[in-house]
């Protein structure tokens, strides 16, 4: 799994790629969310477009990020979830918590609304 971060305006875009599978790597993702809050980057867009495989461990870290950011007054939104990852969001009802987007600009704009 790889993690890339980029500021776009006042939104931190975190792009994950590869397999998001249980193990120590997930702690790295968790710490990225915490660092974002520490640096007062409370608006985060998580790009899952290049994630080839994800299970419940990955969902757990995303929920953790949501909680961390929400408590800091921010928000976590999801970009480009693949069909299979979207299915996991539906099965677990997390789709009712997260705003998901397929267009990056639309997603970025949503933080200003």
């Amino acid at each position, binding site marked *: 799994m790889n993690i890339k971060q980029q500021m776009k305006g006042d939104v931190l875009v975190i792009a994950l790629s590869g397999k998001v*599978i249980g193990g120590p790597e997930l702690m790295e993702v968790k710490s990225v969310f915490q660092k974002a809050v520490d640096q007062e980057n409370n608006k985060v867009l998580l790009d899952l477009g290049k994630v080839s*495989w994800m*299970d*419940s461990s990955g969902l*757990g870290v995303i929920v953790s990020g949501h909680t961390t950011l929400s408590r800091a007054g921010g928000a976590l939104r999801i970009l480009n979830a693949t069909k*299979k990852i979207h299915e996991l969001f539906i*099965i*677990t009802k997390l789709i009712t*918590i997260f705003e998901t987007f397929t267009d990056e600009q639309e997603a970025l704009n949503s933080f200003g609304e």
Partner: protein
Amino acid sequence: MRPIEIRLPSDTSVLEPLQLIIEAVGKSAEVEEDDLSLLSVAVVELAKNAMEHGNENDPEKIVTISFDIFPNRIRFHIDDEGSWEPEKALGFNPGEGEELLLTRGRGVLIARNLAKWVEFGLTPEGKTRVTLIWPLT
């Protein structure tokens, strides 16, 4: 034919190799290409549960995954060395109410939805066994 067995230490570092093995099993049974990763998610979720709840993440303890390929289904058994009670260990519905914000506990829910059939039981020796049926079209 006797089932084929895969024996794994209870260590999350083996999850990625397991994912690849399960997709190879699915491919050999002619599971549709699009469904291979869903199959591997379902089995990996149950293997993780077996490592955690049955074997307490002790790498010395083994999770055994066996499978049989039938004309219309693949049957997996995921066995651990414990005798945990699934409803006790997984005693909440991760898809309802405030529990939606829990960071864990979704594995069985996901496996049940993807595989259509997941059942908890015991091996002849009294250890926890999960049976997963993956239908073949």
